[in-house]
């Protein structure tokens, strides 16, 4: 008995030694391969497998392995930049913090890398590229881009006696249409809403541009959040809540955001007639997937009646790529970044996701032009009134404070001027402090 046990043990020992030997060999091979592995971290990413497949093409072309990590929680971004092993390329969901990162020496200024990688800046649409510039410096490169326009439900227009093919031509008309499209029951509870200015998330950047202003001066040196344009845009949004009782509107629309990727989304179920959303809705993954029979139209958001020249105003948002300051091999990062920005790759990635390409050449690809609804957005991108979100080192903090102020004004009916004056008084000194 004992003898058998001993033999068995010996066998195990030999087997494990053999395994270790094999393991050793693989480990060395891995070490050799690891020298040429590049790491790309992408904050946004509904479909990480698809992104990995895209980057596998880079491996096929160059033999350099690329490892994709996506998506990332927002609190992983800072450690990824400050750690000793930062990714070689980092794609952020927006440009809001890039200037703050640069100030803290966390991201690389890209001029040299753009030159080394042979990246053609003229191929970028100006609006998304401008958000990456700080004076002469270029801190990031836009990759995928989003724009927003007005969506309307044609069936609901028809039922309300409106022409289903004609969207409102001015912001004032939009409010009139919304009133005709809003219905309440005997108790005054809403059963249908005409327009929600902040369905899903806020679109203040778009509305305030329509009223001719922004949160900051164009150079980003001063806060202008209590400007007349800001006050007008909030007062305009307020009416969609106060007219029907903010509490009633909030109760009616509660939980809608969670139904975003389903057939129960209020825009298809006849509960909401108009709202503002992005280009991806017109692609294969959203409306045509969840509610193919939906009858809807898309048009640029209308300007105010007394400023027709502001037609086709739109605000660009979207992902931007940065190279962490601590990236080990800047040349390798530069080559990978150049490859990511090449028209063919941009076209492939954003065709798949139905997002706007940042490259003008890629935008000529027929997948961006053959769908007339998608083309509304492509045209907006090239519009001279297309602009970007001005960012400052206090962008995130002001955004969060504005979120609360927005609720106070739009959902609680407070006076926009009073509330915005408070924000101005608090944040102008903060901005001056941060810009020092």
């Amino acid at each position, binding site marked *: 008995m004992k003898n058998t046990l001993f033999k068995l043990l010996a066998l195990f020992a030999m087997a494990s030694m053999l395994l270790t030997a094999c393991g050793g060999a693989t480990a060395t091979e891995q070490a050799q391969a690891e020298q040429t592995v590049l790491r790309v971290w992408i904050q946004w990413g509904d479909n990480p497998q698809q992104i990995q497949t895209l980057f596998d093409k880079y491996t096929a072309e160059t033999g350099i392995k690329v490892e994709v990590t996506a998506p990332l929680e927002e609190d992983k971004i800072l450690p990824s930049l400050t750690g000793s092993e930062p990714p070689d390329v980092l794609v952020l969901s927006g440009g809001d913090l890039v200037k703050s990162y640069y100030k803290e020496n966390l991201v690389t200024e890209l001029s040299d890398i753009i030159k080394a990688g042979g990246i053609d800046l003229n191929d970028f649409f100006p609006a998304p590229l401008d958000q990456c510039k700080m004076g002469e410096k270029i801190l990031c490169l836009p990759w995928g881009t989003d724009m927003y326009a007005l969506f309307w439900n044609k069936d609901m227009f028809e039922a309300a006696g409106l022409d289903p093919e004609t969207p409102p031509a001015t912001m004032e008309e939009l409010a009139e249409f919304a009133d005709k499209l809003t219905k309440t029951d005997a108790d005054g509870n809403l059963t249908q809403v005409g327009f929600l200015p902040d369905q899903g998330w806020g679109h203040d950047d778009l509305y305030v541009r329509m009223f001719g202003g922004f949160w900051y001066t164009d150079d980003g040196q001063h806060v202008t959040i209590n400007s007349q344009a800001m006050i007008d845009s909030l007062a305009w949004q307020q009416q969609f809540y106060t007219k029907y009782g903010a509490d009633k509107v909030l109760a009616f629309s509660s*939980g809608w955001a969670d139904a975003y990727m389903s057939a129960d989304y209020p825009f298809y179920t006849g509960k909401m007639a108009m709202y503002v959303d992005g280009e991806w809705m017109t692609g294969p993954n959203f409306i045509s997937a969840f509610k193919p029979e939906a009858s809807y139209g898309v048009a640029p958001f209308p300007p105010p009646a007394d400023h027709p020249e502001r037609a086709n105003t739109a605000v660009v948002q979207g992902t931007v790529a940065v190279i962490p300051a601590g990236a080990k091999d800047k040349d390798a990062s530069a080559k990978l970044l150049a490859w990511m920005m090449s028209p063919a790759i941009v076209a492939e990635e954003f065709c798949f996701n139905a997002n706007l390409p940042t490259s003008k050449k890629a935008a000529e690809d027929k997948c961006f032009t053959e769908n007339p609804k998608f083309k509304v957005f492509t045209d907006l991108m090239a519009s001279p009134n297309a602009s970007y979100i001005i960012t400052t080192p206090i962008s995130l*903090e002001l955004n969060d404070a504005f979120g609360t102020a927005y609720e106070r004004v739009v959902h*609680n009916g407070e006076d926009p001027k009073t509330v915005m004056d408070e924000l101005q008084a608090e944040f102008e000194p903060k901005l001056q402090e941060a810009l020092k």
Partner: protein
Amino acid sequence: MDELRMGGRKWNWPPKFRKWEFRERAHFKIGMLFLLPWTIGFLIFTLYPMAASFAYSFATYHPKAPLEWVGFQNYADLIKDDLFWKSLYNTLFMVVIGVPLTLLMSFFCAVLLNLKVRGQSIYRVIYFLPSIVPTVASTILWLWILNPNMGILNTVLGYIGIQGPNWMSNPVWSKPGLILLGMWGMGGTIIIYLSGLQDVPTSLLEAAELDGASWWQRLWHVTVPMVSPITLFNLITGVIAQFQYFAQAYVFRGSHGLGYPLNSTLFYSVYLYQNGFLWLKMGYASAMAWVLFIIILICTILLLRVTERFTYYAG
């Protein structure tokens, strides 16, 4: 004091040490070796971060540059920060309203679950089950339960003629909504109470019954004092947990900003996270963490002092 009473036995204090034998010394070394993994983990992952955050709290933190010492500036700024006070108020609301309410309800449930009825163990399982549901999952579930439009809670309230509130978008009702959510997952507290209830000597209860005490009198004069150490334990762990309230609030806002609606769910830890990890103000966040540490410390000491009179340790 030379004598110390412990478990009814007399101990000499301080104990007289003799020289260790070889075997004892060897055991000591082995013992230390077993302690080593924990000790290293504690030093690296607890003590060092605590010390670092203490240092950061007196500085402006730059990830890639040396700390910029600012003395007590971060602490002084906290006093002037409205959101800091708002977040402290929100947190105290959960502590002062949520904890006693949860204790009361879980004690009540434990008493019911302790009744000798058919299917007792099934009831116990049902009440305990929610506490093993992960926080994020249970919070998302409650987002639907509390939905003012199609949620089950307001629907049921509607049947009895009550128009339920906007639990998620009305700043008055968001915290009560979160307290409800917390009470749903109080299975852990119930279990601790249940074990305490089983330690209440039946002889005492029978004696009280023979003396003509009603069910309520037995509960109030025998059971409640006998489980008072359990109440104290649940109270202190509950208070600490509420002071650190984070995950539910983080998920509960849905697609809105942190603190939605109107900063009514901006709890202390949420605001700390926002400062440190989203606004890159790690020094400020560290100061907040130390202020919270001191608040919890003071609260715990106060609770122990105040409850001394009401807590009865048998044996």
